[in-house]
């Protein structure tokens, strides 16, 4: 059953990513990225990361993609045109990406037996559920980095406001 889930949502993710690549209009690319993120959320859940699956839907497909769609509509972005800058990128980009994929796939598939199998509903530690375990580490051992991220978000908000503000 997990294999069926993996195949369905894996194909959906790859199809969304390819659609992102082939669409000319940025809004179509942004919406296909939402498809990829939602299928990745299902895959996270199948790997026993329930909290991250929820966070993926809420933070990524909710907040970040709304921001993208908002900016695309605000700037009234049209279809992109082909320029000769993209000719060189075609000749280098497609072979380069294919080479990186071949290298990664070769390494992962040759280590296939050592990597083992994933079981659905598998808990990481002994019977502790995912959110309890995650918060246990996050609020004790990693409390300082966790608090620093709030400063990071604050700085990012201020930076966004300053950069996007109309100059007088």
């Amino acid at each position, binding site marked *: 059953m997990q294999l069926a889930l993996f195949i369905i949502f894996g194909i959906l993710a790859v199809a969304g990513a390819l659609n992102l690549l082939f669409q000319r209009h940025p809004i179509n690319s942004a919406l296909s990225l939402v498809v*990829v993120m939602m299928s990745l959320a299902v*895959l996270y859940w199948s790997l026993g990361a329930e909290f*991250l699956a929820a966070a993926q839907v809420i933070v990524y497909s909710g907040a970040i993609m709304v921001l993208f769609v908002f900016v695309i509509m605000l700037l009234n972005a049209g279809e992109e045109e082909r320029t000769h800058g993209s000719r060189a990128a075609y000749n280098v980009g497609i072979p380069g990406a294919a080479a990186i*994929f071949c290298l990664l796939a070769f390494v992962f598939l040759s280590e*296939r037996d050592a990597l083992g199998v994933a079981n659905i509903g598998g808990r990481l530690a002994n019977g502790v559920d995912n959110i309890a375990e995650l918060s246990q580490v996050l609020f004790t051992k990693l409390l300082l980095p966790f608090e620093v991220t709030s400063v*990071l978000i604050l700085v990012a908000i201020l930076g966004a406001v300053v*950069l996007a503000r109309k100059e007088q």
Partner: protein
Amino acid sequence: MVPIAYYLVLAAVLFSIGIGAFLIKRNVITIFISIELMLNAVNLTFVAFAHKWHQIGGQIFVFFVMVVAAAEAAVGLAIIIAIFRTRQTLNVDEIDLMNS
């Protein structure tokens, strides 16, 4: 019962498509979207390895990557708005102030 290697190969596929889109696309927003795709592909490998080694550290790393991605998206989109306001274009071939 899915081999972990399949998850990693799926992440490699998504990452390579992200690299291809990053290099081929000429619209600055679409380039930014392909960076997000690559970040997601890397997150999938983190979660897969966290499952394999029974360690929560990988999932915590993904949590921090999400936070940084949110901050990066906010600042990056603000920069895109500023570029569009001064140059009236989103095509990266025409944004060549440092190249002239």
